[in-house]
């Protein structure tokens, strides 16, 4: 009960920080706006329909941007702000544990990222239902969680919001651009299978084309494994950097 109260308090802090941070809040709107713009470009001007492959790439673009701009960048900025303003140590010295801070911090950005992922479906014009929607929901929740945790790791290693933005860049390149360009460059196709965003892109592409998608064991291991690794790295970083390098 105590832990839930503390987690809820941290989530309330993050929510208030988010609604006051216009730079961070523009992320979801930019993602949605970009998807709308690309849909307008891709669609057949005569009847407004989109080729299934174009629809698939639109969905992949949408969720990739959402994961990185909202998941990684939003969370890293929120934590970096906390370090910059010296409030992270205050939370630590107010009996908030690593686990409570983790859960409280991830809650709001995770809901927002998952919400945008679901919103992208009708915006792109994808008609997914039943098993396809369930799989899409599950894999985007896991992907959103992983991207949020990666954002937390970046945030905790950053001294301020500026350095968080800088540190985000290479991470965004790896997790967004490799899956996006994997179809064009042969070498990237092999790498993308090892990235959670790669697995997500492949699944989203298939789902967008109306096919029922099943994750194989390797893809499941990539999705779950990268989430677990990210969580462990974050908890380690919180204990070490949060206290001693604040």
């Amino acid at each position, binding site marked *: 009960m*105590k832990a839930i*109260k*503390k987690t*809820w*308090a*941290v989530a*309330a*802090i993050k929510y*208030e*920080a988010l609604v*006051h941070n216009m730079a961070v809040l523009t992320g979801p709107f930019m993602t949605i706006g970009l998807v709308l713009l690309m849909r307008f470009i891709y669609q057949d001007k005569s009847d407004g329909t989109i080729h299934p492959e174009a629809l698939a790439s639109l969905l992949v673009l949408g969720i990739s941007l959402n994961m990185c701009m909202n998941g990684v960048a939003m969370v890293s900025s929120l934590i970096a702000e906390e370090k910059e*303003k*010296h*409030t992270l*140590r*205050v*939370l*630590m*010295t*107010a*009996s*908030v*544990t690593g686990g409570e801070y983790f859960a409280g911090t991830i809650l709001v950005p995770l809901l927002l990222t998952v919400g945008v992922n679901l919103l992208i479906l009708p915006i792109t014009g994808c008609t997914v239902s039943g098993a396809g929607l369930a799989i899409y929901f599950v894999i985007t929740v896991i992907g959103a969680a992983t991207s949020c945790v990666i954002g937390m790791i970046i945030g905790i290693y950053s001294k301020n919001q500026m350095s968080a933005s800088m540190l985000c860049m290479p991470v965004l390149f790896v997790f967004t651009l490799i899956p996006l360009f994997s179809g064009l460059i042969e070498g990237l196709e092999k790498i993308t299978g090892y990235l959670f965003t790669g697995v997500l892109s492949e699944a989203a592409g298939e789902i967008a084309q109306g096919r029922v998608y099943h994750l194989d064991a390797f893809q499941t291991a990539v999705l779950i494994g990268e989430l677990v690794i990210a969580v462990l790295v974050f908890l380690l970083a919180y204990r070490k950097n949060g*206290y*001693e390098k604040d």
Partner: protein
Amino acid sequence: MSQKIVLELNAVSKRYKTELALKDISLTLSEGEILGFLGPSGAGKTTAIKIITGQLRQTSGEARILGTASENLDASIYEKIGVVSDNSGVYEKMTVQRNLEIFAGILEVPKSRVTEVLQQTGLYEHRKKPAGKLSRGQGQRLVLARAVLHRPRILFLDEPTSGLDPATAVQIHEMLLALKKEGMAIFLTTHNMEEAACLCDRVALLCRGQIAELDSPEALCIKYNTKKQYRVRLENNTEVTLTESPEDIGKLTEYLKENKVVTLHSCEPTLEQVFLQATGYRLNVDQGNNQKHSGETRRKGVVR
């Protein structure tokens, strides 16, 4: 004097690679006591607080807080202690009241306590203001308000009045003395000797990681008062300094009999001078430590 000991350091040392930050620090802190940990920047004051509160592991020795060894502390210890550092932040975009309400939620404190603390710290009228709009002094009071919200048994203050104007510093001193009266133990680090003399029951003079002296400010000033002198201002506006020689005692008696004395001060050293004598090092003198007199001026503005 049978107050319960809440903090105990026994030969605590801390080494950072090649640098020895703390060496054989031993001291105790009791309920309702203010202990000053005095020393210049880099003397090891903040390191000591971090070790005691479990944020840093000592290299050797034992630190016990509320009966628990510091290496066994977990986050729950912060439900019993309060920590204020010189760079403790606040949520600038939230109001003053919201800042406290958030921590009331974390520390399971009733909301009525928030109002009580706002009133105690003189922030009640600013409660609707975003914390980022507060002056530095008001901000520091908010940090202090947050630290005492859950009525901690021990309050750790790391340079609590650093950079504050004298009037705000006095307000904070008054708050601390009120908390002490309630039985709170306060561990105060500062390099402001005037502040230490005003507030502390005992002070530890820290230099290069070692305690050079540990006693009450009065006892230390008396201990280092090796050349006893008295400064006398007379009716004709002249000032004379007298020693304890029979001749000077005779003069003083005569001045007093003839009612010529306007002011009379004993000239025991200030805590600043004691620090210099005890450690051979001078503390920062930019904290208003320009007093010439001892006893009376040390307590100016604050009644303990």
